[in-house]
């Protein structure tokens, strides 16, 4: 298994994928966080809600990480490297396990990078304005931790979805449509249902200030459940379908 993990890591390192998408995720998060703070007037800066808003956006890049996860698994089918991978490791469940583990590790790393960058940017901008942070350190920490867990789970969701669907373009389209259209529509129309959907549940974990959210721990558990279910489906498809 260690050989397999090392191989997966080498795959990521030897294509431009990780660098490009990891940087895009951090850039997107940082821009969202900075934009929120910069757009606030001095009175709003003193409002704890503004900081909560800004910090919760450290998880914005999770969407890019979701796509990165999809490419980690479905990309092998897109480029025809899946057959080679399974020739090396015919026990395909192990391949998926290695990819999920690698996805989670990458998601965690990018999540930490986004959280730290976001925190530094918020602190720096407040400092520049000469305004003290209107929230305590514990709240900052739990928001950043939530964003990191959220990003990690999104990476796993992406790997599982990519392995389940196999066709990269289709998987990316499905993911974007779901997040941008379906969840938005449902949370608007039927909030009691919508808050159990993956992204909305995950936003509770990131402590996005909004009504109709689940409690943070419940949101995290719901998101983890989606990741587990999708991974189980991906495992079945990976083991049984021809390459």
């Amino acid at each position, binding site marked *: 298994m260690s*050989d*397999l993990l*090392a*191989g*997966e890591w*080498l*795959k990521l390192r*030897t*294509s*431009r*994928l990780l660098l490009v998408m990891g940087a895009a995720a951090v850039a997107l998060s940082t821009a969202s966080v900075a934009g929120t703070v910069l757009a606030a007037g001095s009175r709003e800066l003193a409002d704890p809600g503004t900081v909560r808003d800004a910090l919760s956006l450290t998880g914005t890049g999770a969407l890019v990480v979701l796509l990165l996860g999809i490419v980690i698994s479905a*990309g092998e089918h897109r*480029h*025809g*490297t899946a*057959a*080679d*991978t*399974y*020739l*090396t*490791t*015919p*026990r395909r469940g192990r391949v998926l396990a290695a990819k999920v583990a690698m996805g989670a590790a990458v998601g965690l790393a990018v999540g930490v990078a986004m959280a730290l960058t976001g925190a530094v940017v918020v602190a720096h901008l407040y400092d520049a304005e000469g305004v003290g942070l209107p929230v305590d350190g514990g709240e900052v920490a739990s928001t950043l931790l939530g964003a990191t867990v959220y990003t990690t789970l999104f990476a796993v969701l992406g790997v599982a979805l990519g392995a389940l669907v196999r066709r990269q373009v289709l998987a990316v389209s499905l993911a974007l449509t779901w997040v941008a259209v379906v969840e938005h529509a449902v949370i608007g129309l039927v909030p009691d249902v919508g808050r159990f959907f993956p992204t909305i549940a995950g936003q509770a974990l990131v402590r996005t200030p909004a009504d109709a959210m689940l409690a943070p721990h419940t949101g995290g558990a719901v998101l983890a459940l989606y990741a587990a279910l999708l991974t189980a489906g991906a495992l079945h498809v990976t083991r*049984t379908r*021809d*390459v």
Partner: protein
Amino acid sequence: MIEVRSLTKSYGDRRAVDRLTFTAPAGRVTGFLGPNGAGKTTTFRCLLGLAAPTSGEALIDGRPYRELTAPRRQVGAVLESIGFHPSRRGRDHLRVLARSAGLDGRRIDAVLTTVGLDDAADRPVGGYSLGMKQRLGLAGALLGDPSVVVLDEPANGLDPEGVRWVRQLLRTWADEGRTVLVSSHQLAEIAQVVDRVVIVRDGTAVVDEDVAALADQQVSVRAEPIGPLLQALADAGVDHRRLRDGTVAVGGVGADEVGRIAAAAGVVVTELTRPSAVAALESLFLAATGNGAPTADPEVTTPTRPTRPTRPTGTTEAAETTGPAGPTAGDGPAEAEEVRS
């Protein structure tokens, strides 16, 4: 050693592989031939654990691929469907393979040299030609120094020199005692190197023979006049065809038997020859597949008619209805060579 036993692979109602049985022994080059769509690639995918057989089995050294303990050390495979990440360098592709399989990465430089990719190894694969990708695929197959080599259309995309190079590799591997199974829809590419031939059509093996034995079963004969000889052969129930150049191709019996039949009929034989193994293989391939695979070598175009017990019905009928004055409605280019009068 590779053993395929009654292998069947269905996609819905269509049987891509239909009760296919053959073996590829160690130390020999086994050619796996057939027209495009005959089921060659599907057979390889089943053999390599990439597709699950509907029934039957395909074994490598007695076990299914998925049960091999160190598959890259046991089997080296190149399939057309195997691709490369375009932004990854050739050398990195091999590093990934070595790392994932727990192979010695120090062999990478050696195999890159073997396949002639030293200069291109540090460039992204996206810029490689088809031939270079074939070479990189071969490098990957060689990395684990495997005892079984399975190559699907390895000559595709290679120039004539590259094709010859592949043939030499195949010969070397077999001489080293490895099992070599190589598919092609272009017989001429590998005819000179195969020791054993399996010809598939519609997912079924129509020929499974040692090449050396093929030539023994084919005779080319000329006689003056030709009519009585054709009659005598027909009376003896011997499979034969009259060809456009005036010779008669006889299958299923040796030269001695043809000589005896001619003598008994009082016919003067002016020429009695056995074709080369390559020529015999060529005519067998054309007869078995009913497809005119082009050949670059004029020597192997001599049309003769083999007799194979497993030959498809269509061509069998064509051969058996040929008589002294019998025009034949052929179903392929092999028949086009016959005299139509």
